[in-house]
């Protein structure tokens, strides 16, 4: 079976970009948490974990 060409440098770049996006998401999430009531953010966290 023929497999596609794999460019590891390209994949590494995408992995780093995804990581940066997740870090940016964390910043937005924390900003949201700070201006949101404890009940609201923790209820959403509870839904995710439970």
């Amino acid at each position, binding site marked *: 079976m023929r497999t596609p060409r794999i460019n590891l440098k390209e994949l590494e770049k995408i992995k780093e970009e995804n990581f940066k996006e*997740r*870090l940016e998401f964390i910043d937005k999430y*924390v900003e949201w*948490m700070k201006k949101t009531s*404890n009940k609201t953010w*923790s*209820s959403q966290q*509870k839904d*995710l*974990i439970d």
Partner: protein
Amino acid sequence: MKINISGKEIEFKKEQNKLDRFVIEFTSLLNRLQIRYVIVSGYVAILFGRSRTSEDVDIIVEKQDFKTFITVWNTISDGYYCINTNDVKEAYEDYLSSGISLRFAKKNTFIPNIEFKFPKTDLDNWTAQKRKKVIINNHYFYISPLELQISFKLHLGSEKDIEDARHLYKLFEETLDMTLIKEFNRKLKTQALFQRYLQ
């Protein structure tokens, strides 16, 4: 978000998730026994809202003699079992005293579990000494100082760990002791990661 931070205490209210309840129940046994312990690693970020869960909760427990450990073991055994061994002597000698963690889970379960360990390094001892009391909905337990958690998470270095560090840093940015963070970053050689991912 409303959170009160004063000296050695952090107090806030939240809707408790399953992991919070698991931690509160287990640490209430340690509190009752007046054992010095400190929660470290991933759960600290989850406690403060990080959007992920964990299969284990790391707790460093001050070294104790075998007689004291038997009391701890018997108290824990009321609702939990040790995944590694059911022999208290083996648990103490072959695991804890040999630097290997014990894992305790609720009876008839496997996860989540408590990774229970004695301090191995000066850093572990420092964390236990400088622990912070967290009061959550009238329950309390002890966690590592956040400054160390942030630097240490960077030291661990996986993407998940760096994300935990970023979450804690961004959430507590205004209240952290930056001199302490700088010192830990210097000692753990995490200055570059701190610059790159947290600032």
